[in-house]
């Protein structure tokens, strides 16, 4: 008898592995092996053109170049890190809050044409990001729709800007409005840290980067909204009914019931958002190529740039690995902050 059960188990196990095999092969071939190769190439001086076997082992040189050695590659790396971080800081909270709001609105029982709104909000997420980027290039022109709309809304007070070629940082604009400039600001602003001046570090996202951030938020909200809608529908109606019986109005219900019950989902959405923003590439590739003045140079774009333009595949791979480490650490930190409560 016992052996019969064991046989059954073994058969199940074999069947399980068999079912898994196709996915496993794809996973190994297209994910695990490339990651191992990237790790290996990051320790070589491979140029990406000659056969990989001819690459020379250089140890940690590539990492040293971007992290420690002063020079254009170090300052570019930290510029990219800075830009990407501003990108994430701007986009992740915005997309999380907006998508949660949309989800709650769409989930209202009394809302009519629910399906229409759901589709409409989701649509940007399933449209090719290249197509969207090209259209936004037109919208962001000096005489484009965005400037026109802002001019109309501010009754002509808005001064049109050429969004995609404006390199001024948000905080620089604010500081300069307050009378602080690089020239006559305090001395520490001119100090240098990791290849960039302090003034550069505190630039904030440039106008061009903000334009891409707004677009990116718009395109990603839909996906996040769907996740929230699914989670909202999982919250039992009885909870809300109980709240209603206790006399809770809309805001306390949202704050005390919806948000706490959605905490695992919020963690998930923020994680997705962090990964997505730190890897932003296609919009940069299509819209700005890292310009103006390298203010839209992001880490992922820098990997591509080094690998396929500068013939520095090894260096590109090293940056890719560093990007992986950064995302990994950020996710761990974020898990610490929101995750511990989420597990309850």
């Amino acid at each position, binding site marked *: 008898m016992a052996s019969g059960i064991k046989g059954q188990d073994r058969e199940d196990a074999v069947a399980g592995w068999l079912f898994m095999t196709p996915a496993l092969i794809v996973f190994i071939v297209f994910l695990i092996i490339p990651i191992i190769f990237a790790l290996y190439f990051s320790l070589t001086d491979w*140029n*990406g*053109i*000659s*056969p*990989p076997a*001819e690459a020379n082992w250089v140890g940690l040189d590539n990492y040293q170049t971007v992290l420690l050695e002063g*020079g*254009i*590659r170090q300052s570019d790396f930290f510029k990219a890190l800075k830009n990407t971080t501003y990108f994430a800081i701007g986009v992740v909270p915005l997309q999380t809050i907006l998508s949660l709001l949309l989800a709650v609105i769409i989930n209202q029982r009394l809302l009519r044409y629910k399906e229409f709104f759901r589709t409409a909000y989701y649509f940007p997420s*399933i*449209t*090719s*990001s*290249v*197509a969207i*980027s*090209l259209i936004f*290039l037109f919208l962001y*022109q*000096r*005489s*484009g729709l965005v400037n026109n709309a802002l001019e109309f809304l501010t009754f002509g007070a808005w001064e049109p800007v*050429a969004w*995609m*070629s*404006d*390199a*001024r940082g948000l905080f620089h604009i604010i500081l300069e409005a307050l009378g602080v400039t690089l020239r006559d600001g305090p001395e520490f602003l001119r100090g240098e840290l990791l290849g960039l001046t302090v003034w550069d570090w505190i630039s904030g996202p440039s106008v061009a980067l903000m334009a891409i951030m707004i677009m990116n938020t718009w395109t990603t909200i839909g996906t996040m909204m769907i996740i929230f809608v699914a989670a909202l529908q999982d919250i039992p109606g009885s909870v809300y009914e109980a709240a209603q019986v206790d006399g809770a109005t809309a805001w306390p219900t949202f704050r005390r019931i919806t948000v706490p019950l959605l905490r695992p989902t919020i963690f998930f959405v923020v994680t997705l958002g962090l990964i997505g923003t730190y890897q932003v590439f296609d919009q940069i*590739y*299509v*819209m*700005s*190529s*890292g*310009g*103006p*003045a*390298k203010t839209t140079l992001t880490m992922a774009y820098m990997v591509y740039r080094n690998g*396929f*333009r*500068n*013939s*520095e595949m090894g260096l590109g791979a090293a940056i890719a690995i560093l990007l992986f480490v950064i995302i990994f650490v950020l996710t761990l930190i974020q898990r610490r902050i929101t995750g511990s409560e989420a597990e309850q």
Partner: protein
Amino acid sequence: MTRKWYKLLAFFLVLTMALVACGGQEEEPPAGADGEQDVPTEAPPVEEEPEAEEEPPAEEEPPAEEEEPAEGTGAELQLMGWSSSEAENTRLQAVIDDFNAANGNIQVNLNLVPDYDTRLQTSLAGGAPPDVFYIDSFRLPDLVDAGAVEPAEGRIEDPDDFYESLRDAFTYNGTFYCPPKDFSTLGLQYNTDMFDAAGLEYPNEDWTWDDLRSAAEQLTNEEEGVYGMVLSADFARWIAFLYQAGGEVANEDFTEMTINSPEAQEAMDFYVNMVLDGFAAQPADLDSGWAGEAFGRERAAMSMEGNWIVPALADGFPDVNYGVTQLPAGPAGEATMAFTVCYGVPADIPDERKEAAFEVVNYLTGAEGMKAWTDLGLAMPTRQSLRDQWLEQFPDLQPFLDGAEHARAWQFVTGFQDVLDTVNNGLQQAFAGTMTSEQVLEQAQEVGTEVLNR
């Protein structure tokens, strides 16, 4: 009933998505390569045509191939390049068909791909390169240093017939690597209507910087958003002024940067002040993706683009009346830039294939193939012997062709992309007033020194 509707809806959704996805892919490369203000430098000039179609030409089997399918041993070669305009793609295919018809044992397949650099690089690294491929002169050092290109020295018929500037563009460390397919030079385009309205004389070959500046000043009408000239924050344009001022990027053997010189300073001041003084503006400030568009929309009276602007204007802005002349002379005389592409043969293929590949290259860059290819009037012949006959057909393009006489090659050393980025970045900031022209040159010198010392 409802299920049917859902099916129909789903079908249309999928259809839309497919269409959207296709549309995106099709348009991606031109925009990515140079759709915007700050990239056009490293993009091969041919790609700069905004109307570039990405579809390879209709893959009609050449009749010749069908008639004599397998004569002799039959080497099948692949020629890889990027797509430019539909007209050019078709013409190149026709030239290759001619070659295939005349050669029973070598058959060439033309393969025009999007995202060319990436494709080429992966095929080289993967050990299966195309037998003949395009090389932009700026990219040549990278490919040579990686050991990817077979030297063409001694294997090309009558190499001295090529313009010297073009031979230079494909000579690296003293070795000639590949014969030029065609080329473009920078010229000065001027809007004749706007010059007439302002009562100014048209630019001519004797113009100097001062003439350019004063004309630009008089043609500018800031209230109407019209500027005398459109200037890009682009090393590939400014460098012409650098050479006109007598400056050099580096010393002759590229061991030392010389970009921070008084001559360079003069060129940088001239270029940047045109914008700071309000006589010139960047394409983006004129609601345009590139200088040619700003010129076509008559937002700028002059531009300095290459001959690719001619078909672009004919397509997009056929009503604009304009003329072309050479760039003005600077303190040290005339200079322009030559942007050119060659047919390279990989170092990593068997000898018989190389021989066959060079035979193809010789046909394409030889008198017969070159004539057939350039008769379209879009590309200019790289052979001096074809000059007169070509000019008879296209007299309007003479300033561009004449540019070859005093053109400089757009080619430096491996890793120079960093310097290019730095100067572009600096020019953008100088135009915005956040960097002085001294700082731009200092930074370029510093980064260049770092690159040369690698």
